[in-house]
């Protein structure tokens, strides 16, 4: 009987010790494997952030270059060509009425280029009025619904320019590429933030699988530069939705001290 009790204790000890040893080793291995996995996930996240940052930088450079090319083309093809024609006609001096018409057209072209670079009304009339003007122009071609609400104070100039360019880019994408016939636009204050919402009923695209184009990256870049966040949703055939939230305060300007 005593021998049997001894055997039971003996077995209990062996099994218990082995089991606890296995549990201890299991805990250690779990910690090592779990941490290794976490390091892997963090590295992957950092890689994605870097990649995204690189894409944004590339898109910014690409957008700037595109803008320069467009201005150069406008100046060369429209202003340059008009001035050349005007010079030829002045030499011949046959049709003064045509000279006047050509000068007017050239002036309009120069105004358009200047407006695209920085709309003069933005500073004097304010963002809301300039955007209303833009949508009035767009309304001539497609159906537009706007909800632009007043803000308690003016936005910082850089925010106004950013929102202006974002809106122009969104309109341009919808009109040029998506074939939309309806656009809705909203700009309103919410909890000290400026919220911009834009939708169209165009062809859309598969946002999950399609890489963002230069236009969308440029928009994202402008929102981020203002310390804001943005999101967009789109599926093929179901239009496009964009929302940005930009802090109402001006971004901090870093000043470099000169030694």
């Amino acid at each position, binding site marked *: 009987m005593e021998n049997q009790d*001894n055997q039971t*204790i*003996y077995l*209990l*000890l*062996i099994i*218990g*010790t082995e089991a*606890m*040893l296995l*549990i*201890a*080793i299991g*805990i*250690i291995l779990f*910690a*090592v494997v*779990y*941490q*290794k996995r*976490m*390091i892997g996930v*963090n590295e992957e996240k950092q890689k994605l952030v870097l990649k995204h940052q690189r894409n944004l930088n590339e898109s910014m450079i690409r957008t700037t270059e595109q803008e320069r090319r467009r201005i150069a083309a406008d100046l060369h093809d429209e202003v340059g060509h008009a001035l050349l024609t005007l010079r030829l006609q002045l030499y011949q001096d046959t049709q003064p009425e045509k000279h006047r018409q050509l000068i007017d057209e050239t002036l309009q072209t120069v105004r358009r280029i200047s407006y695209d670079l920085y709309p003069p009304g933005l500073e004097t009339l304010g963002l809301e009025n300039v955007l209303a003007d833009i949508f009035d122009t767009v309304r001539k071609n497609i159906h537009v619904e706007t909800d632009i609400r007043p803000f308690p104070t003016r936005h910082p100039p850089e925010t106004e320019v950013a929102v202006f360019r974002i809106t122009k880019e969104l309109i341009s994408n919808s009109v040029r590429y998506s074939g939309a016939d309806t656009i809705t636009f909203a700009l309103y204050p919410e909890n000290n933030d400026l919220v911009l919402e834009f939708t169209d009923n165009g062809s859309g695209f598969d946002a999950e699988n399609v890489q963002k184009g230069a236009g969308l990256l440029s928009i994202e870049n402008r929102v981020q530069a203002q310390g804001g966040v943005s999101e967009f949703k789109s599926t093929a055939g179901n239009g496009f939705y964009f929302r940005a939230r930009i802090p109402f305060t001006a971004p901090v300007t870093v000043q470099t001290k000169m030694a």
Partner: protein
Amino acid sequence: MLIRALFHLVPVSVFVLCVLAVVSRRQMRGELAVFFWYILVSGVLTALSYGLWLTQQNNLLVINLNSLLELVLLTCMYVMALEKPARWVVLVTGSAAFIFGVLNLGIQGMEQFNSHTKAVESVIIFIFTVFYFRKLLMLPDKKPLRTIPMFWINSGLLIYFAAGLFLFALGNSVINLPNAVSRFIWGMDMLIAVFAYAFIFIGIWKTRTTRPSTSS
């Protein structure tokens, strides 16, 4: 023969750890400073216990005293190593276990193996080590665990106290087992202890090759 060798190997391992801890003293800061004292106290009491065992005298009083000091020092170490609220849990449970251990000296007797104290100590140190692993995994600075000295020390303590739990709890019953069986079981405990000391050795060694701030 192997078991007999293990009985001598454990004091030698503790002695080696003591020497390494002494030469690494400067690098052992914060909770590792408390661990330094734990190694030193363990070294002295193991030497004393080993001496008594060699001269065939009862060394259980020294072993019981070692358990209580071990409990105090390891509780202090985890109090320093952990953050709230785990720190409070460690402090309260460690203090309660110490009071129980002191009372148990009277209950089980000073010259009997205090199996209850050792079993309680094993359970709570096991929990402390799990708390510490949790802390390590939550650290924002994701350094590989193998580079952190406390990871190795914590692993060593986990192995020792988890694997020894049943042995400590049934320690007094082992004494009644036939001599060969009893020796085999204690030998197994010694083997686990040497295995755990190897982890602790690596941990202390890492303090010499890693910057002090990484220990916590």
